[in-house]
């Protein structure tokens, strides 16, 4: 037990004397009731509703003025306006959105990570009411306002965003005013405009998902984060396996039934999609920087040929080729969505798109234009605000309604927060 002093008392004494669970009986009982799953409290008054809306959207209680205004809106039967007011709170961006996106930016799904170009771009797209589908395909990046004189954006470190976060924490600036939109291709000269794909081609995403390996990680985590599906949920062993690369053993451990019953189900659909990332690589000093902290995103443009493959395709796409020499040899960055022909078409692919293309931008668009993308965003917000997944037919109807509203609002994610918070503000 630590002996650190608090208010001249040891931590033991503090807990003994000040522990609200012990000393404040009404709080104790309240907490215990909650901890044991007491489903809900009766939330009836417009005061309670206003406070809940604000708490759920911004993560913090409202000021007296804002609360008063929100109550008024609710009493005037306009809770949507009350929710919109809550969204104006700085903590909606700094706390709610940042912690919503943070685990998406790394393979460990760690929430304790600094602000970076991935999370800043995610927040910025919501902040500026941009069509949220651009998150997977836009030539967009959000950086700190130049007037703040922060450490400039650099392709080989995250100091710019860490400086921005420091400035925010010291209350010298607010995140919502500090973020400015730029063209990703301007900020990251390595990327031509047609090679940008929203957060997928940010430095942070590259560091996390193009690091070593085979670049499949960037596809898998995109599926997980933006379609709310892991590969096992959409695996289909009957898909055509002609694009599965050579590095996938067809007889792992000497047993091909493992491949035919499991591996093929994910790789048949994933490999032709992950081919979109064939020209991207995370370049770092393996000897002096083995974790790639100081690495940078590289992209083989039309004039850059990889020495190993002899094409623009990165060498990692041809690694372990002897595992199954008869497998697919990636020749370019063309991708195709085999799930469109799958029995499981419930992801709702956009009939206006062709389901094939070249590069990450069009592949990101393919994902973002699916019905599942819209549903995933809305359900994630619902869960964020209501603290539970949709649980009954009323909830599912609400989700359907929210998807429609989300689309009608130009895929503005704020709309989903407004709708969810109103739905879950209590009667």
């Amino acid at each position, binding site marked *: 037990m630590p002996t650190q002093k*608090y*208010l001249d008392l040891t*931590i033991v004494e503090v*807990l003994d*004397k*000040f522990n*609200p*669970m012990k*000393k*404040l009986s*009404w*709080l104790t009982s*309240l*907490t215990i009731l*909650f*901890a044991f*799953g007491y*489903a809900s*409290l*009766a*939330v009836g008054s417009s*005061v*309670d509703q206003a406070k*809940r809306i604000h*708490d*759920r959207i911004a*993560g*913090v*209680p409202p*000021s*007296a003025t804002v*609360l008063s205004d929100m109550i008024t809106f609710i009493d005037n039967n306009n809770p949507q306006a009350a929710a919109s007011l809550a969204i104006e709170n700085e903590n909606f961006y*700094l706390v709610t959105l940042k912690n919503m996106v943070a685990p998406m930016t790394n393979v460990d799904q760690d*929430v*304790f990570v600094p602000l970076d170009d991935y999370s800043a771009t995610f927040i910025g797209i919501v902040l500026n009411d941009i069509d949220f589908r651009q998150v997977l395909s836009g030539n967009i990046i959000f950086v700190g306002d130049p007037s703040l004189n922060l450490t400039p954006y650099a392709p080989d470190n995250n100091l710019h965003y860490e400086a921005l976060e420091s400035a925010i924490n*010291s*209350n010298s600036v607010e995140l919502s005013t500090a973020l400015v939109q730029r063209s990703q291709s301007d900020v990251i000269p390595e990327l031509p405009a047609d090679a940008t794909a929203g957060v997928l081609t940010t430095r942070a995403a590259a560091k996390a998902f193009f690091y070593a390996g085979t670049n499949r990680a960037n596809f898998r985590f995109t599926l997980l984060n933006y379609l709310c599906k892991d590969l096992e949920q959409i695996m289909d*062993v*009957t898909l*055509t396996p*002609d694009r599965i690369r050579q590095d996938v053993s067809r007889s*792992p*451990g*000497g*047993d*091909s*039934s493992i*491949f*035919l019953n499991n591996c*093929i189900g994910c790789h048949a659909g994933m490999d032709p999609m992950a081919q979109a990332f064939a020209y991207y690589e995370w370049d770092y000093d393996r000897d002096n920087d083995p974790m790639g902290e100081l690495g940078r995103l590289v992209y083989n443009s039309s004039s850059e040929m990889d020495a190993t493959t002899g094409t623009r395709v990165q060498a990692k796409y041809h690694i372990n080729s*002897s*595992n*199954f020499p*008869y497998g697919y040899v990636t020749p370019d960055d063309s991708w195709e969505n085999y799930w469109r022909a799958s*029995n499981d*078409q419930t992801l709702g692919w956009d009939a206006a798109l062709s389901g094939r293309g070249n590069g990450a931008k069009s592949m990101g668009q393919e994902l973002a234009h699916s019905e599942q993308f819209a549903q995933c965003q809305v359900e994630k917000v619902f869960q964020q605000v209501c*603290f*539970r997944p949709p*649980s009954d037919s009323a909830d599912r109807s609400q989700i359907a309604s929210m998807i429609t509203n989300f689309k009608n609002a130009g895929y503005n994610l704020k709309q989903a927060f407004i709708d969810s918070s109103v739905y*879950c503000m209590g009667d």
Partner: protein
Amino acid sequence: MNWDSTIGAMLFRFFLIGFIVTFIGACGGGSGESVEENPNTETLTASSYSGPVAQTSDIENFRINFWSNVIANNRCGQCHNENDQAPKFARTDDVNLAYNAVNPYVDLNSPSLSSIVEKVSGGHGCWLASNTACADTIAAYISAWAGESVAGNTSSITLVAPTSHDLVDTKDIPVDSSLFSTTVYPILTNYCSDCHAETATIPQSPFFASADVDTAYSAALSRMNVEVPEDSRFVVRLNSFHNCWGDCSSNASEMQNAIQQFSDAIPVTTVDSNLVTSKALNLLDDGIIASSGGRYEANMIAKYEFKQGSGSIAYDVSGVSPELHLNLSGDYEWVGGWGIRFNSGAVEDEKGKGKAQGSTSASKKLYDQITATGEYSIEAWVTPANVTQEGPARIVSYSGGVSERNFTLGQVLYNYVALNRSSQTSANGEPALSTNDDDERLQATLQHVVINYDLENGRRIYVNGEYTEDLDDAGGGSLSDWDSAFALVLGNEASGDRPWEGVIRLVVVHNRILTDDQIQNNYDLRVGQKYYLLFNVSEWVDLAEAFVVFEVSEFDSSAYLFNAPFFISLDPNAVPTGIRLRNMRIGINGKEVDVGQAYAKTSVDLDASSYSYSLGGQVVSTIGTVVAIEKGPALDQFFLTFDELGSGTYVRTSSTTVTPVTPADVPDDERAPTIGLRTFDEVNSTFSVITGVDRQQSSVLSTFETVKQQLPTKVDIESFLSAHQMAVTQLSIEYCSALVDDTSLRSTFFSGFDFNSGPSSSLDTAGRAQLATHLFNGIIGVAQDDQPTEAELTTEISDLLNQLINDCTSCSDNAARTQILVKASCAAVLGSAVSFIH
């Protein structure tokens, strides 16, 4: 598509054997760097030969490598001598006449295709328990005899039209073993489990009488012919007097009846008459053998191919006497496509784990042949079962126990390891040479691995034809300390306590190192028997003898490999013109397979612009795919289907769209709570918003950074831990402390409260009420249904202060004490569910 390159690929494949053999000639005999061969001089009775000398060098090669090995009375010489049965190629009176006699029956270009080999493979005169092993041994004699002749071979595979079979309705073997369990299985467990079960005293693979019915079913599938039960392997073996339990004929009938009963209960799969199909083929009956040699083996001294697929002996088919056969024991099983799997699952006792071991006397062949040259090469095709085993786990070892060896090829996690006893290393062959950890060379998939050892370089490891560039720091040394009393063992240590799990499909020991080119050559030839299957599609393309040709092999026990299909008409004058080939699929036993249809998106136009008979037709696809074995290679009937081929079209109905199932409502008592915890940043920001204290305030920031990861990261209230409360308490204290210590902030938050007097004055009844009101207004704000009222809060604060004041009789009654008590009261409310839960 780049047709220049694909035609080049076609050429390579079509004339593969010829090119490879030519290549061998260049790297084997033609190189000035090559070493002298070390011919097999061991003979059985040749030393007593007193007839005419060999008239030519070829006859001399015949005498040394073939004749001397077959003239013994327990081999061909028993019958094919000068006095008995023709052809008299084992006669001992005149080696020149023997040479003349055998020539019609051997093919020096393709030794394994020699008619004498074919004869022996059928069981004629075989001196071993395995006809396959005898045939391979004879082929090895011929290969050794051929020597440079083989190297000059440029012959190619000749594609011959197979007998066409129409598709017939077949029976689809059930996946489930329940029908088997009530029909054939009882006979197997009754009469065969003394040998063909893992638990038998001397277990004999395959385990079709296993106590586990699914294991038994899997092993029995290829031995039951549901179309013609009397042709079932089970029935044929009993009719061949294999371990009958009574009258063999009756036993065979009993087995046949059981299989008939099994068959009768299986519905017939009707072939869809609308499909555009090729003719049907069986792998073994209709396939053209595509691999008949080409490996570099001039200096091999022991070779294991594991072809026989059953029994408890792995035969040395090197043709180099004495044969170093290996006894299989423990937990092992034969696998399809030639190989042995060593397991560790069935037998708990480590001594019972699988291995294949030769006798020390026969193993002395390795000692004799290798110490004579001072160098060797161990070559193997292996599939490690995992990348977690270590020890090193012994894959190939010539040793006497865990601490004594001549050489070992082993596995440690992702690495291959080579141990060798020499003047530069210990008796245990250490220090070991390992592949680099970072390279992760060893993968749990089929790999070709070679260990070279010579005086110049010491040990060198090659994986999949590539030198790993891991240097042997010990260097090369003398092998004079080798021990001739060790045994060759695969899959384990001689002492049985360093098991390796995985599949070995080929092991060859050479008493010279293989050159880089030779290793690459042997790797390129892969392992196992490959066939060409010619699927007749003339019906649809209006061309004579038109075929889609696949290279097919048994990939392992579970699947076939279909590879690199091409189109060709065997009529040299036929040329396709604008024939559309679309969406090709593989069918087995009357239906398209569900999994592995890698050619389902094929789109090729067969046309003169891309077709060349002399260059091997036209490529359809360059990739390969694996499809599941159903009844086994002897029984499975393959065919192809096309959505479009020439005049044939098949309209494939679109996949059925699956309507998502609406999930059931979650019962009320199972629903997630509608309230939750504030997460770490929310707690911090909430405290900052409530108190007005900057998050960057030094003690606040320091505490938050300390407890941040102890605070909740999820809102789920059921994940609430006491650790969360500890962290919240610490942080709330820091915020309240900072609030009270900041005179400006406190004068706003606790407006009018007297911080400059002792508790007796500041926290009297009125003071306490004032404090409670400030805490209520500042933290709770306005009255809410789910929050305590101001009166409740006042009562609780008053009670708390009573205790704090009364419990401390020695505390001063001064302003400092008042501030402490205010901080305590503030923290009690701020860190409570009031702000922690929402």
